[in-house]
């Protein structure tokens, strides 16, 4: 049982980090479907720096790359007011592709001094609480929510809609980058092409499961981590096909959401802001 809880936290941590990153920008009204690609590229850069310099610096580098990619998405999603969904999907392909092309030489190299997972897991937890406070207590949180709910009103009150959204994308990108760094420096301390293996997409689902609340994201991420672990823990001990266990986490996520009632997305989510309209 203890083991299962530990796995829930350690597998849930990258989901939580990436989920928080996506959640942050979504609260400001910008959908980020590029998570998978952002994680992939940050995981690579974090690993490269971690290998050549120091893992702690690798974490920073991963976060930096994530933040830069967040800003890059901002160019399209905020400044150009392009379709956020499609820009995100394109970024996902680009990030995955670029990491695969640039990372060849780091494949098959073990990381001699991996980071302890526990520290990063604690950091993720702290970030969730931090975001909760940021949203509810800080001026920036107020701006962010107003930009996500009613950008027109926020603009009238003198809030720079674009500025807040860029900041949210950069901060969120940093968290997504941290998730990538966790994967390549701690969770599985080496790098391979495609090592994010779809976690980025689950993180996007997590935002919805969490109803855009950072504290609920903790619950969602750990729940998914628990179910993901249990599919292997229970496999073989009950006469049920292994495929049914494998499908279980995804089925239960739908059920949980159906039972937990309607979650309201930020009103302006996915809509580019136009002052003139």
């Amino acid at each position: 049982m203890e083991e299962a809880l530990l796995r829930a936290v350690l597998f849930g941590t990258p989901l939580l980090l990436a989920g928080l990153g996506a959640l942050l920008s979504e609260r400001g009204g910008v959908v980020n479907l590029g998570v998978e690609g952002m994680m992939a590229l940050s995981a690579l850069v974090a690993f490269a720096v971690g290998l050549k310099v120091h893992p702690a610096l690798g974490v920073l580098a991963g976060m930096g790359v994530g933040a830069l990619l967040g800003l890059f998405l901002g160019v399209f999603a905020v400044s150009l007011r392009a379709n956020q969904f499609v820009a995100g999907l394109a970024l996902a392909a680009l990030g995955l592709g670029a990491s695969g092309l640039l990372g060849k030489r780091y494949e098959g190299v073990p990381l001699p001094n991996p980071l302890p997972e526990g520290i990063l897991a604690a950091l993720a937890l702290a970030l969730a609480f931090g975001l909760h406070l940021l949203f509810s207590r800080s001026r920036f949180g107020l701006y962010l929510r107003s930009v996500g709910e009613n950008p027109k009103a926020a603009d009238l009150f003198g809030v720079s809609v674009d500025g807040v959204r860029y900041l949210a994308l950069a901060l969120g990108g940093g968290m997504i980058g941290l998730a990538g760094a966790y994967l390549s420096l701690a969770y599985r301390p080496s790098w391979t092409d495609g090592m994010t293996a779809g976690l980025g997409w689950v993180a996007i689902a997590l935002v919805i499961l969490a109803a855009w609340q950072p504290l609920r994201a903790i619950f969602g991420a750990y729940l998914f981590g628990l179910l993901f672990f249990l599919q292997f823990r229970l496999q073989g001990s009950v006469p049920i096909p292994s495929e049914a266990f494998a499908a279980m986490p995804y089925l239960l996520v739908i059920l949980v959401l159906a039972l937990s009632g309607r979650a309201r997305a930020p009103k302006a989510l996915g809509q580019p802001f136009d002052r003139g309209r």
Partner: protein
Amino acid sequence: MRRILGFLLLALGLAWAQGDKLKACFIYVGPIGDAGWTYAHDVGRKKAEAALPWLETRYVESVPEAQALPVIDRFVREGCQVIFATSFGYMEAVLEGAKKYPNVIFAHATGIKRAPNVATYMADFYQVYYLNGLAAGALSKTGKVGYVAAFPIPEVKRHINAFTLGVRAVNPKAQVLVRWINAWYDPAKAREATEALLAQGADVFAFTEDTPTVIQTAAKKGAYSFGHYTPMLKFAPDHVVSGQIVHWDVIYMDFLKKVKEGVYTPKNLEKVDYFWLLEHKAVEMGADYGVPINPKHVPLLQKAQMTVGGRKVSVHDRIMALLKDMQSPKPTFDPFTGPIQDRKGVLRIPAGKKATLEELLTMEWAAPGVVGDWPGEPK
């Protein structure tokens, strides 16, 4: 003038030599990752190209099954004379392509259907898995050995069975706990499956997945493991005991040399099937090249005892003796020698008989000692 003529001749000669190169092209099913199946084939390709000056190679990675035929079309058009298709799933495409291009030579890895211009080849690990199983049986204190498995296909089942037979030969009460991850490549699933097995008491690990994840995870908890496909010692120098290493280059070079010498032509491959094992040096037992057993674990295995024909011998000596035997030109030992029952008690290989090649290639049953779900298990 003479000098110019000399140059001309030289240039002509060079051009001739260029044109005379044999062009072999490889279709890979996955990306050339860090440790797995496709990586190993690519190592084989590179070694062959380095060793054979008259050889020119090309490859294309991550080709889905449905894509194989168009890729063959393109390769033929670009002048490929030999095409290696490195996945079972390419079978239909290879046979169709072979009909379309009767003058091109095809070789299909893990395949079972041949044609006048289609040969099949495989470097198989089942003997090595048996030997690794012996070591695993000796090293496990809990009597529970973990196996993280990709997909329930005959190749993987054969390997798990051979491994389990080895484990049971040392410790007749031991269990091999199998967990399917339904993916050839998925570090996250491999990690959590290993964690689940660790939580259930497994303390030695083998696997079929294309990354060293199982090894890294097991080592964190001090559990032993066996590398798969490529040398993985460097990922956990204190915990990788041995493993399975492939040498596709041995098969590639043999095949290509015979094509070059005219032994193999597009008309006579109907019977050419490589199912190469330890004796052909197409596979190797080891934690790293030339390291059959990690020296750190040799004393442990020397101390461990097992009964062979009523006589006590050290597991280490048994492994080395069998390895030597199976590496010799005329091996006398084979892990799949009857009588072998499956875990349901059905006799699968009668006493005194060895499993035939066909039985090996289509193995569906589970050996006694295998614990866990087993899709497609015969009734």
